């Protein structure tokens, strides 16, 4: 039986050649950007040693660049940027609330336990 209470959103997701050209241009732009970020990361990673005074800064740069890369993948490649605000929020908000807490507690506890072990051995 054909249901008339469902809307086929997929049928309305089409676009024409002009719009396609525009989208492809954006895709290629993002590709170049992602590659560039990776090249920068590898360059920094192989030229600055972990023992260097700059390492903390380097770490923060790595994390920021990664988040930038992830942002472009999710928003452009996965089209989350083009979806409705509600969909975007229901995906991102619960995830971030949970994960930020988990990162905090994981690293904090890890460091604390590391300190305990150090004192145990001395």
């Amino acid at each position, binding site marked *: 039986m054909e249901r008339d209470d469902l809307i086929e959103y997929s049928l309305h997701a089409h*676009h024409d050649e002009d719009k396609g050209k525009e989208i492809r241009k954006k895709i290629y732009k993002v590709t170049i950007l992602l590659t560039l970020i990776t090249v920068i990361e590898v360059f920094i990673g192989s030229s600055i040693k972990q023992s260097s005074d700059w390492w903390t800064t380097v770490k923060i740069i790595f994390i920021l660049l990664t988040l930038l890369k992830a942002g472009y993948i999710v928003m452009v490649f996965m089209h989350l940027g083009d979806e409705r605000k509600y969909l975007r929020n229901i995906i991102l908000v619960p995830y971030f609330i949970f994960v930020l807490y988990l990162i905090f507690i994981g690293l904090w506890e890890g460091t604390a336990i590391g300190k305990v072990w150090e004192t145990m051995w001395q």
Partner: protein
Amino acid sequence: MAGHSAQLDAKTLWGGKESPFQTSYGKLMMWFFLVSDALTFTGLLIAYGFTRHDAQDAWPIGEETFNSMPFLGHGYPLLYVALMTFILIVSSVTMVLAVEAGHRMDRKGVTKWMIATVIGGFFFLGSQAWEWSHFIHGSEFGKIELADGSVAIVKGHFGEINNFTILEAGRKHKVGAVIKDDLMHQFQHAAERGHLEAGKIHLADGSIAKINKMKDHDMKLIIKKSGKTYKLGGKEITGAKAKQLYYEALYAGEKSRVIYGANMKQNEYGPQQYAQFFFFITGFHGFHVFSGVVINILILLGVLSGTYHKRGHYEMVEKTGLYWHFVDLVWVFVFTFFYLL
């Protein structure tokens, strides 16, 4: 009650017919699945962070561990993983181009880009197999326990072994015989068992042979566990001193002084958990890539047979696209936290 609801206009009130997300059921559920899968990977990476934070300096650095290229040898820190990352990004791009072609109902375009995506996936899987094999087999020097009880990883160029000349006959080899095959394997096998002594090797058949090998270059010891003399976090030991300490330990004739490569019990790179996390996280991700390739092939067959064209939309391509991009997304994080930091 009816009076209250009448004050809201139809735009504010969700009547139940439309989806509040203006998207199909399948796509929404794919997103929810991806969130849950993202939480799994997040859990794994945070567990890695936890272990790393409590191990501190003993943890290996990406550029120390991953510095080899196929055909080129050592001395290319992080280049190979960067290449893997690039391959995955490119295959993500071809996927998004397939999705875009699908929105234009361009069946030829979808087919072309889906094939490219599948090929990219195979390339990534192949690179990962090489990476694993290299990780498991390890370096020529291995990790060594020095005379003072400290443990060091060794960097530099290992002088090639030319041959073994038999000094004392065994069951198989006669005195004066020259062995030229499988040298490195026999050498490492003997080293792990403590069958090396002052430039001589005890072979499996009971014979003793002289090791004829080229000189090592640019040797460097990095202490990973403190001993009586050398401490964790101290300066790297280089030059003649490094050579002397290394061979003193290697030729001590004691079992398990040196470890090559990695398995589930021990590894030459750092603490035991390091290899376990490597195997689990990259393995779990690799398994996702493998599933992704299989799903992509199935969808490609659907495209070729015209199923989606008849349906009037290529949403299936879009949904698998979401999964494939997610796999790329996870790799971006694995790359940062496992290899860079």
